[in-house]
């Protein structure tokens, strides 16, 4: 891929049985003139083994990820990386990808989420104004029939990632340290309550930015009912 264009690598996770469509350019103009120049889509299993690395038409608009990856995926979750090149003159910030996710046949509503950007996305000359390797998610106060967890992926080429997942139950916090090899991923389950206190929030700390999503699964069916990125509250 070209190294003379601006580069962005974004990441999501795909599970079998889900329809998964990705808007390649979310902030399109009325004239539809924002485009990416190159796109590769690669998928990796939980251990970081490559499942596929495909050149994809960057003008695809909405990419049917389930169809694209069907022949390559095992029967478990995969981390999917979108490596794009674009002209920064035609994007105000970066070409955000957004996606729809829905379990086939499920009565649950589809989920719409912003795909994590993991590498790149800062225009040259613009300083970073916030930390993005210390992120938080605040859970609703009322109990829901969901099991929560964090899905974490390491998009690096060489370096293991060390991260801490800190779950808060009232004033008490439970810390779990995780180590993730390059291109590997894992789900860290979060207990719904501890000593009668509900899970209130979770924090993720790492040396460098990871692909990260907070997930909620229906307690009975296991269907995803939450798939969202964490947020940075500390500037």
């Amino acid at each position: 891929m070209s190294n003379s264009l601006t580069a962005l690598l974004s990441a999501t996770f795909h599970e079998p049985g889900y329809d998964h469509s990705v808007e390649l350019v979310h902030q399109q103009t009325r004239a539809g003139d924002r485009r990416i120049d190159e796109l590769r889509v690669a998928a990796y299993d939980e251990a970081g083994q490559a499942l596929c690395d495909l050149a994809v038409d960057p003008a695809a608009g909405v990419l049917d990820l389930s169809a694209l990856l069907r022949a390559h995926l095992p029967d478990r979750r995969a981390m999917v990386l979108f490596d794009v090149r674009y002209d920064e003159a035609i994007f105000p910030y970066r070409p955000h990808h957004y996606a729809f996710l829905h379990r086939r046949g499920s009565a649950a509503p589809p989920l719409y989420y912003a795909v994590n950007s993991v590498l790149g996305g800062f225009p040259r000359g613009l300083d970073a104004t916030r930390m993005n390797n210390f992120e938080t998610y605040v859970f609703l106060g009322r109990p829901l029939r969901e099991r929560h967890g964090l899905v974490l992926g390491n998009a690096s080429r060489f370096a293991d990632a060390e991260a801490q997942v800190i779950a808060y139950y009232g004033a008490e916090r439970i810390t779990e340290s995780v180590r993730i090899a390059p291109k590997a991923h894992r789900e860290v389950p979060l207990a719904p309550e501890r000593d009668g206190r509900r899970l209130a929030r979770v924090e993720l700390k790492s040396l460098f930015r990871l692909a990260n999503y907070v997930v909620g699964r229906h307690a009975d069916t296991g269907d995803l009912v939450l798939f969202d990125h964490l947020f940075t509250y500390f500037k």
Partner: protein
Amino acid sequence: MSATEASPALPTALDPVLLCYCVALTVGELRSAVRAGRWPLPDKAQAGKLCTGCAGDLLHCVRILEAAGAAR
């Protein structure tokens, strides 16, 4: 061939790999800069500090290349 040109842990075949997406730094550019004692390059000094996603890779490569250079 110098150690930094052919470090077994970071072969030259990896030189086209884009290491830092924010400042467009490749492994090859980093190798050349370290070899010349010019790292960090003035126009790439923000490498690893913006999106932070490459910080682990960058540290990994700098350590290997500096160690290989010191061993020459």
